[in-house]
């Protein structure tokens, strides 16, 4: 009887472990942070599966709110989100890793206008014009330009004649390139990555200003995620730059690698958000 009980316990334990490892890890992606390179995502997913030896699912959502919502619902384990999205949901999430771009886990915001516009020198020259945002939860594509306006003593809601969202960094470039918007902000990483593959589109825009560096949009994990899954995923991401397959993927992502995320890097964003809320 003792033996039988012991056997049953072993069996239950084994099956429990097996079921935990065979359930997929879900990774959320939005066009606001990563380009819609579905073939690349698939290769990355396969890479992660091989490294983690368990299924990985990439869940693509149109906007950041949806990804955050899914994470709160525990339907996402990881997500690559914007800094404001992380800060707003700090209670429910933890930082997993930050991409390294040009050797640093930093990014910049580019203010772009159509190439035909040779007059605009700063964001303030776009008063009464049509401006395109990325996403209401985007740092570079929403918070940053609005913050600049506030600093300049302008009301971001009245400053422009009309604003609209594209939910996608690259579509901001397209909207500016075709002249639908008179200006927009986009992350330097996104603009430079696009310039590598579609210089014809970026060529139709002109960079007016570049913001000071800020923390690169991080990859966050659900706070309720098992520490083991967290650590394993972090290990795999951080180890990509030391692995030929990982390097190849990083090259396609136009990144140098991933590093551990430091919450301090996102403090300035947090301050900005606080300032905007207080306004």
């Amino acid at each position, binding site marked *: 009887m003792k033996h039988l009980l012991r056997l049953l316990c072993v069996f239950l334990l084994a099956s429990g472990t097996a079921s935990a490892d065979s359930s997929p890890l879900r990774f959320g992606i939005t066009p606001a942070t990563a380009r819609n390179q579905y073939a690349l995502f698939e290769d990355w997913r396969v890479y992660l599966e091989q490294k983690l030896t368990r299924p990985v699912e990439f869940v693509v959502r149109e906007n950041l709110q949806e990804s955050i919502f899914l994470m709160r619902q525990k339907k996402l384990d990881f997500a690559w989100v914007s800094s404001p999205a992380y800060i707003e949901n700090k209670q429910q999430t933890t930082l997993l890793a930050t991409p390294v771009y040009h050797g640093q886990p930093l990014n910049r915001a580019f203010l772009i206008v159509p190439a035909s516009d040779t007059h605009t020198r700063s964001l303030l020259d776009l008063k009464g014009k049509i401006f395109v945002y990325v996403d209401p939860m985007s740092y570079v594509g929403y918070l940053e330009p609005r913050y600049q306006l506030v600093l300049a003593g302008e009301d971001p809601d009245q400053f422009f004649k009309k604003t609209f969202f594209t939910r996608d960094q690259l579509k901001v470039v397209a909207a500016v390139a075709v002249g*639908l918007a008179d200006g927009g902000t986009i992350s330097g990483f996104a603009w430079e990555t696009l310039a590598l593959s579609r210089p014809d589109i970026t060529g139709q825009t002109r960079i007016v200003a570049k913001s000071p560096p800020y923390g690169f949009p991080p990859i966050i994990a659900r706070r309720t995620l098992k520490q083991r899954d967290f650590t394993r995923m972090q290990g795999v991401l951080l180890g990509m730059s030391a692995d030929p397959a990982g390097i190849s993927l990083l090259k396609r992502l136009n990144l140098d690698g991933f590093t551990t995320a430091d919450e301090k890097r996102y403090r300035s964003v947090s301050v900005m958000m606080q300032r905007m809320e207080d306004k």
Partner: protein
Amino acid sequence: MKFFMNLSYRYKIPLWGGLLILISSLTVSASFILNDYNQLVRDLEMESDKLGYSLKSNLFSALLQDDVWRAFEIISEASRRAGSNRVLVESIIVIDNQQRVVVSTQPRQARMLVALKNIDPEFAEIATQIKQMEGGASRTIYLPHSKHYYSLSSIEKDNTSLGTLIIVHSKAVFLPLFAENAWQGLWIGALILAILLPFNWCWGQRMARPLLQLAERMAQLGNKWPEDLDPHLYEYRDELGRLYEAYNLLLGDLKAKELLKNRMIQSERLAALGQLAAGIAHEINNPLCGMLMAIDTLKCHSDTSPLTKKTISLIERGLTQIKDTVAALLVEGKMNTRHLMIQDIEDVLTLISPTSGKKALHIIWHNSLTEEVPLPATYVRQILMNLLMNAIKAAAQQGEVACDVGINNQQLLISVRNDGKMLSAEQITRLFEPFTTFSEGGHGLGLWVTYQIVNQLGGTITVNREDDKYMNFTVSLPLGTPA
């Protein structure tokens, strides 16, 4: 025009037909092309309507959420997709109910929030037309002198309109599509012409040919007898057929009249000659009888020398020959009252047999008389004799002479045929004149005498060539001629 109207029917009929075919083909082609053009316009409008309809629903929700980018993506995608279609979409503009541009596929031309009427004068006109549109309606607008046409449809749901969709099409698509269809139409027209025109030409020629022949024959009428019309050229009973018939009747009449005239002239000449000959014969006959009687008296005197006797005999023979000749000319007087018997005809056969035997002729004899005929036997025998002697003389060595005697329609018919030399039409007209001979050794009085006798008996004598092989003399004598 006069030049054309003066042209021969040979050209006029095909030219008229060709002209009519050309006009018909062009009219039919033009109407097809016009119809095609209208169909093309309708098709393009329908395709444009379909495009508008497919966009409206998505645009409504995008406008409702003020999602400019989505609206832009919807119209950009539609514009790109339509490029592969027949309708050429130049641009798409979405305006709100205040007629301000919400979004456009060409944002530089139609800026966001700009009033439609301020874009350009054409859009100002469109703006006016939109105001007149009823809710839910869609329509196509063609502006004069514009390179575009505009398809408008209201963006609405549940009777709530959020704006208007304006699809700007280029008219440039019309011409190539229209030209493509028009070329097709013209090719078919040309093909029809290529078939019909030669057919028309042949038909016209065929129609004109009988008319031309008729005209040609009629033109010859004044100068000579025209050849007969080809009876197979036109065998139908329409107006032209009746014209042919009338022409043939007319020609027959004219020929009969001409024949009659010639016969009258001939018989008048023969009558005059007969009178002259009879007069001269009488005048000669009287002194001749006297001279012969004197010679006869002189011969009774026995004291005449041998030389005188010889001379007298010579004169007597000469005078007798003159008498014979004169007697031959003088066909009158004694009419034998005896009626013609069957045997009289057979006697003639016996009489000619020695002569015909010399030439080894084949005599075909057919006497169908069955009873006595009330005609003077002597004259009939002389006629038959003369005709047969002539025929025997004319017939070739070992040739053929045929004789047919019979009664038909109260007339005695004598027909004598030989296979000798053919006489020409000219010779035939002079055949019955005295001293006309076409054979050696004849004095040319036989047929003259025959003619005179026949004439006196109230009959007719005709000569004709039979199959260009036989000369046929036919005498017709009415029965019961007073002897």
